[in-house]
């Protein structure tokens, strides 16, 4: 017996009045991000915002994998790094012309390593930004999820992966620039990378990419696949008895989130001007998860919001009260986890429901 695909116009679910509101909100945020912010913020602050939005792209992926799929990935920095290094390698080679990149010279490397060769080609390099995280995540996901490594085990494994990745990158100085990472870029596809116009263009690119990825993720969540993902999160073993292989569902989702992180990393490099192992270790990876939790892990908007809010808070406090930042970050985190596990979005939703109830009474 095959499923009957014929669609009947039975309206079982009530109409969703919030749908157009959501669209309106999205449009409003888009206008603010694309029009208002570039006008209001000075270049330096706009650059910072671009950086937060890069993090927001990673957070979006974490929201998908963790919030929707229950996979707490503590190693998103790895994929962020893979994307970032792919971009960084291209920029380095581009700046060097036909020569070796500067760090290779002082690391005593005499010939361009084979690993670097494909990154001479900008198209290939951009493809790598997506492909490398995709392949690594798909491979890791297949290995790990097939064997039903999950929950805390998965979290710890991804954390160890981040730690191992840092060690590997740092240890291969001639190949990766070591602890220093890749920095000191000049040209970005024909533009002076530090020029204001380039940076503004980059900001707009980041904002648009985030918007597009957000819509894509939203579509995914709303789709049957999204429902299936929730089902896997809440009862992986039960899903098997519905005839699905949860490992496939998880691998696909994990891979999507990894690709998002990779894209974010690639955008981050020209925006901030550096990619280094310090950006993809255990702590930055965890900080992003924290941001997602603070924003609200069960809603995609929460993940994005959390990344921007936490990014801003970090900049602000490190400028004004550097000593208090760790306390505040820790305390905020304990508070959110204990009192508002659904984050800012959850609190906002609860308050809204409450006002409505009061208004109705």
């Amino acid at each position: 017996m095959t499923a009957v695909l014929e669609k009947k116009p039975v309206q079982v679910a009530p109409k969703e009045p919030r749908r157009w509101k959501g669209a309106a909100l999205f449009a409003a945020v888009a206008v603010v991000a694309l029009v208002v912010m570039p006008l209001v913020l000075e270049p330096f602050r706009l650059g910072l915002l671009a950086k937060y939005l890069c993090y927001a792209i990673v957070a979006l992926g974490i929201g998908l994998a963790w919030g929707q799929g229950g996979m707490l990935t503590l190693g998103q920095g790895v994929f962020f790094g893979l994307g970032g290094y792919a971009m960084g390698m291209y920029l380095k080679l581009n700046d060097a012309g036909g020569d070796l990149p500067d760090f290779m010279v002082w690391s005593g490397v005499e010939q361009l390593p084979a690993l670097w060769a494909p990154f001479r080609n900008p198209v290939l390099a951009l493809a790598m930004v997506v492909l490398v995280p995709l392949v690594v995540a798909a491979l890791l996901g297949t290995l790990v999820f097939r064997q039903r490594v999950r929950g805390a085990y998965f979290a710890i494994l991804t954390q160890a992966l981040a730690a191992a990745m840092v060690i590997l990158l740092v240890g291969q100085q001639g190949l990766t620039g070591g602890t220093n990472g890749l920095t000191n870029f000049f040209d970005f596809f024909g533009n002076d990378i530090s020029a204001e116009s380039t940076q503004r263009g980059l900001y707009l690119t980041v904002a648009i990419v985030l918007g597009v990825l957000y819509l894509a993720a939203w579509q995914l969540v709303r789709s049957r696949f999204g429902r299936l993902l929730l089902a896997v999160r809440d009862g992986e073993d039960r899903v098997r008895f519905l005839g699905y292989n949860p490992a496939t569902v998880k691998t696909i989702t994990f891979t999507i989130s990894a690709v998002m992180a990779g894209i974010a990393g690639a955008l981050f490099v020209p925006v901030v001007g550096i990619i280094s192992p310090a950006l993809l270790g255990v702590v930055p990876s965890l900080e992003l998860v924290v941001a997602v939790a603070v924003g609200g892990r069960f809603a995609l908007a929460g993940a994005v919001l959390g990344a921007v809010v936490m990014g801003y808070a970090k900049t602000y406090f490190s400028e004004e009260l550097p000593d208090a930042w760790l306390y505040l970050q820790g305390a905020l985190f304990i508070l959110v986890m204990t009192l508002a596990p659904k984050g800012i979005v959850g609190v906002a939703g609860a308050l809204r429901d409450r006002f409505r109830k009061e208004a109705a009474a």
Partner: protein
Amino acid sequence: MEGFLNQLPIGLSIGAVLLLIALGLTFTFGQMGVINMAHGEFIMAGAYTAFLLQDWAGRSAVLVALPVAFVVAGLMGLLLERSVVRFFYGRPLDTLLLTWGVSLVLQQLARDLFGAPNVQVLSPEWLQGAVGPLPYNRLFIMVLAVGSVVAIWAYMNRSAQGRRMQAVMQNRQLAATSGINTGRVDQRTFFIGSGLAGIAGVGLTLIGPVGPTLGTYYIVDAFLVVVAGGLGQLRGAVIAAVALGLLNSYAEFWTNASLAKVIVFAVIIAFLQFRPQGLFVLRSRALT
């Protein structure tokens, strides 16, 4: 050849360090599903206890500090359990993030209390020297690890409290319905698990730095031991720690320290392909 042979006791002693830092975790993780990222900071608390006790105990502070650190770290653990963690049972991933917040606060607290630089903890004179390639202070850590394991084993299998702990670990609901106060057992487990971190901290003052970031150096390794050994499994933790210690020792001997770490990680991933739940698994019919 001599170098090669020397690596054997060195590997065992690395295993002892791993065991010591992971022992407490395997219980809080195994029994309560709490991934305590602040475990590293409890280790740090143990190390600072030894530092503070030097003032009146002098160079033998390490010995005096063992019981004190056990209690200090244990009480910190108990406080953590009572104040927040107990609301999170059954949500391991949430406890991970929660306790990470706690660990940040504790690190900063240590920085404010003791200053950012490392502090000096001198090892006792009677720990100077070595048998072959194995320094006394490493031997001391091995003794500490073995002692902790034996004590825990005896507690779990020879005392009524320990048996209750095992009962809760195997089937919480059943234990609760058969009249065990699981809350009390949880508190005790957390106290002991954290206390063991304190003891580890004292031991580590002999071979490593004592500063606010001490905990962060050990926490990832500790979790890897727990994962490889299986949750709440004393046998598993011992075997995993020793195996990883030896692996690390020989991998570093033949390659270098950076590569050794990567190799250890790769081996663990490969190992989990065969044993996704670690070496030893508690059976249960529950469906998730």
